[in-house]
């Protein structure tokens, strides 16, 4: 009898340990013996951002000895796949870097993020004086799901030397798409390198539409916002024409690029590169001595096309057991000038004016450039479109694939535009 009992208790212990192993993560982010709370935090980014963020975490831990932060980070590729796997295991980190637009909406749709409104109201996160439009970008369905880390805008980065070599000047940001084509061609003829990097459709087609007075998605996010497929045809044809002239590379070159630090503009192999302003830090630090300028994107109505965007957001997961502690980190990030002294404009320009002013005295060259640029965009921009449906990450992924097919000549520009529309309809109808 005793033997039987022993055997059964042995089985019970084994079963318990298997079950414990399945839910081990909860213990990992629990409280340690001395009342120290351990938080898990994730972000994506370049190597320079990883280094900076870890320094910021150290500064936070010094001021908050009762909180310890475990960090997990990757490049952007793979980040959201990893998060999705964690989400399905109800194991999202306490603090996660979240992206505005398609990703925020997807997470909001699945109710994975905590509503930070009460934590802002009780003062745990101090966002006093942050402009309403900026805070708005972290809201979805009336819930505050993310606090912007900083402000961002699409930027035309250019290599000043190469542009000058072709005898051009574009510091005022007034240039049309036709001029962009001319410049890119002239520069590639002059220097033997590419005039521009091939545009990434995910961000730039939306800008292209906005500049033409259209939107990517319709008001209620149930379909495409533009009627005329000719717009996408034009976008494709512009890139195709440039590629034919050798002024921009095709995807076979683009696919070899391993990250922002490895971009053509950094290596001096392209004069223009359209990307987000906060990437200036990574670009400048890897470009060596190459002088890189920033200006508005091309287009006759770039006031209408340009917009300010939260660079990214800090979110707290709904499943976190330490929402308040997580909120304290976000508060630290928003309100402590040290954060931006360490990180510069890598996560965007600070959303608080006091911080911006405090910093302005001793900004690095890059950050000064970015601050000035964001100011320029503030004067020349329209509000961001936030009507992205939860399916938009799939839709933008499809746009990327169709762009590849068109650039490789497997689809004509017209077929590509048509296929994009039918794909969107199919995805939205599900």
């Amino acid at each position, binding site marked *: 009898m005793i*033997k*039987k009992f022993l*055997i*059964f208790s*042995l*089985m019970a212990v*084994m*079963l318990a340990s*298997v079950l414990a192993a*399945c839910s081990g993560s909860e213990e990992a982010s629990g409280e340690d013996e001395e009342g120290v709370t351990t938080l898990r935090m994730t972000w994506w980014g370049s190597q320079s951002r990883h280094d900076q963020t870890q320094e910021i975490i150290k500064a936070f831990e010094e001021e908050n000895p009762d909180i310890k932060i475990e960090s997990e980070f990757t490049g952007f*590729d793979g980040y*959201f*796949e990893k998060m*999705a*796997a964690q*989400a*399905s295991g109800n194991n999202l980190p306490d603090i996660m870097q979240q992206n505005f637009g398609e990703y925020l909406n*997807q997470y909001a749709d*699945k*109710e*994975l993020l905590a509503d930070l409104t009460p934590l802002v109201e009780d003062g745990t996160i101090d966002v006093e004086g942050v402009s309403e439009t900026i805070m708005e970008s972290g809201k979805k369905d009336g819930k505050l799901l993310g606090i912007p880390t900083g402000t961002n805008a699409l930027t035309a980065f250019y290599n000043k030397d190469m542009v000058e070599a072709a005898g051009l000047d574009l510091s005022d940001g007034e240039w049309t798409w036709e001029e962009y084509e001319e410049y890119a061609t002239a520069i590639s003829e002059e220097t033997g390198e590419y005039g521009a990097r091939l545009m990434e459709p995910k961000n730039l087609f939306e800008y292209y539409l906005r500049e033409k007075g259209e939107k990517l998605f319709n008001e209620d996010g149930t379909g495409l916002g533009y009627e005329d497929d000719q717009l996408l045809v034009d976008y494709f044809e512009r890139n195709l024409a440039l590629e034919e002239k050798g002024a921009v590379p*095709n*995807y*076979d*070159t683009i*696919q*070899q690029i391993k990250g922002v630090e490895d971009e053509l503009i950094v290596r001096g192999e392209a004069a223009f590169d359209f990307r987000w302003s906060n990437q200036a830090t990574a670009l400048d630090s890897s470009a060596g001595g190459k002088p890189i300028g920033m200006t508005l994107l091309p287009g006759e109505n770039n006031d209408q096309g340009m917009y300010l965007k939260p660079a990214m957001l800090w979110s707290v997961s709904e499943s976190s057991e330490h929402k308040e502690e997580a909120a304290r980190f976000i508060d630290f990030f928003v309100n402590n000038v040290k954060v931006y002294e360490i990180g510069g404009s890598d996560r965007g320009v600070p959303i608080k004016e006091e911080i911006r002013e405090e910093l302005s005295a001793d900004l690095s060259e890059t950050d000064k450039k970015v601050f000035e640029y964001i100011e320029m965009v503030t004067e020349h921009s329209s509000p961001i479109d936030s009507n992205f449906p939860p399916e938009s*990450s*799939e839709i933008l*992924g499809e746009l990327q*694939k169709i762009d*590849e*097919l068109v650039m*490789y000549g*497997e689809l004509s520009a017209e077929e590509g535009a048509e296929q994009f529309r039918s794909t969107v309809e*199919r995805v939205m109808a*599900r």
Partner: protein
Amino acid sequence: MKVTPPNKKLNTGNKNVTGYAFISPFLIGFFSLTIFPILYSLYLSFTDFDMMGTPNWIGLENYTRMFTSDPTFWKSMKVTFFYAGVAVPIRLVFALLVALALNKVVEMVGLYRTLLYLPSVVGGSIAVSIMWRQLFGNDGAFNSILAAIGLPTHSWLGDPGTAIWTLIVLYGWQFGSSMLIFLAGLRNIPKTFYEASSVDGAGPIRQFFIITIPLLTPVILFNTIMQVIQGFMAFTPSFVVTNGGPVNSTLLYVLYMYQRAFEYFDMGYASAMAWVMLVIIAIFTALIFKSSEHWVHYESDTK
């Protein structure tokens, strides 16, 4: 012959319990980590599960969507069939040739075996895939060699026509485990057969076709089945080396399944895809078994 009767009931109950207790770690693992997930994924394949919400029963919708309105599904199917169809025979032939060569080596056979097996040990890993990306990249070693001997370079991974071939070569290169099994099979063929046939005047090529191949067919069958299954389930190379691109030319089935599940939160659909793959693999395995009646010879049959 005297048959001993089974033991009386004495103690057997107790013995069983002890037995079950000792295998319980396996049983718990088997049921909770294998059987349950398999059945659960079958259930999910009939739902619109998006990883977080509650799964809603939608019947066969995932399956009809897959077959009628998802061109990417068919593309990934095509890529996978091409990949498995080309890469598996290449690997098997290569493994057999190397095994034949090693069978003749007398000295330091252990060293060669280890060296040749090494790619299979590290082969499926991320590290090797990353190395492959470097080797075949535009500025990679492969192009440098071509340039050095005056041949034109090529964007191997960037060209939709050649990217899949780099993955096929990667697959073929990891021939080690099949090779070892072939080698074991070759060692099992009695030397006397060769001696007898050479007395009758058969040369090495004739010996290969009348002795080696027929006696090796059970091993060939085993390797073929294992490799076909592996070929269909390949994931890491296309995920790491090319991520399915360019223009989906290396979008292996499992990679597309992964994208549906983890990029688009489309878990129900991905589960349905997994079951379709299961059925396809089952059909192929059955076909190979069926055909084996005609070409596999077991020594015991030939008596």
